[in-house]
């Protein structure tokens, strides 16, 4: 689920958060429509992320990091670069995952590809900036203060809600940028994803989303670095 939402926020940009009290927005629909318009104009996105998993069982968060790439119409790459290396690729019809074992990439014979494909379908909706699709699955509310807007999405499906209580997205008040997403679980555990070094409308290397032999992350970083 974190991937789904990461894709969605990939079409926003980066921003800041603020601890000051937030005031609920009584009529959030115009704001959400504005967000949708902004998302729909972006062709591709390159993002680096750090992910912290906060569990009551552990004193310190469990950390990982990686890159997230999205290219229209439906290409997605979620790559973990530390503490292990793994690439998840998807388009509208298939998914693939690669593991790095001792420097060599190995394609996995994935179990549950249909579930990943379902995730992909939702990613595609996000990719097109279809907030109406989000609204079908989530109860969306907005709260703001002078420097931050926070979207809270609560799953409508009770079964989903049993696993994920809410998604919290912190953005700039004009919805132009997002920097942080919290995925809240019913028991109090949560995952925090911070995004950084965003590049938009990057022309990715040809094999970036290749499900047989994907391009190396270093090559992609180089392409992103050269983008405006």
């Amino acid at each position: 689920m974190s991937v789904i939402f990461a894709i969605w926020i990939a079409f926003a940009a980066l921003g800041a958060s603020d601890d000051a009290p937030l005031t609920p927005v009584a009529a959030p629909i115009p704001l959400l429509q504005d967000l949708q318009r902004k998302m729909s104009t972006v062709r591709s996105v390159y993002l680096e992320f750090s992910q912290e998993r906060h569990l009551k069982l552990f004193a310190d968060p469990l950390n990982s990091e990686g890159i997230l790439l999205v290219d229209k119409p439906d290409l997605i790459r979620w790559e973990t670069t530390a503490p292990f290396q793994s690439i998840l690729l998807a388009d509208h019809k298939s998914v693939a995952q690669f593991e790095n074992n001792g420097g060599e990439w190995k394609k996995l014979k994935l179990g549950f590809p249909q579930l990943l494909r379902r995730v992909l379908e939702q990613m595609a909706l996000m990719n097109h900036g279809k907030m109406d699709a989000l609204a079908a699955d989530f109860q969306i509310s907005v709260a703001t203060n002078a420097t931050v807007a926070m979207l809270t999405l609560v799953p409508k499906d009770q079964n989903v809600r049993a696993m994920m209580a809410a998604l919290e997205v912190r953005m700039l008040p004009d919805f132009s940028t997002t920097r942080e997403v919290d995925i809240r679980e019913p028991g109090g555990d949560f995952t925090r994803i911070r995004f950084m070094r965003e590049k938009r409308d990057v022309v990715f290397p040809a094999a970036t989303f290749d499900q047989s032999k994907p391009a190396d992350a270093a090559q992609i970083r180089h392409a992103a670095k050269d983008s405006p």
Partner: protein
Amino acid sequence: MGRAIILLFLGAMAGCAFGPVQPPSKPLAPSFPSNALVTQRGILKARGREFPLNGYVTTSETGGLRLVLANDFGGVLVEALVDANGKTSVVSAKAPFRKTWVEHYVMEDLKCVFGIGSSTNCQARRVGTNHFLIERRWYQLDLRTVQIKSGGAP
């Protein structure tokens, strides 16, 4: 959807035997520091399909373990404890894992890799400095230790 996952997973697990396995042995010699957070990446293979998993294990000063098993997207699948004598307690197990399956296999493999208890049914072997292979009749787990940090237990 959860039921579908369980059925698919059990179907995969029950569909065929994995093949010849090594003779069972005792747990591996302890090789992990105490009071540490050990991060492991595993690929569980069953009936020709592969399932990536992340294991987070804290080792206590007294020789106990805490395990969190998570999927690629951060979802926790298993939470479990092991005391220094090898007694296990499964705190939670979510689909596709079942509690009994976790008790019988996940905890057994955990104790084998971390050198706890006196089981003689271990199927784990070290195949590299940070690389373990567990082969049982129904599954294979290719396990690599990717990070060890001091501390980590609450």
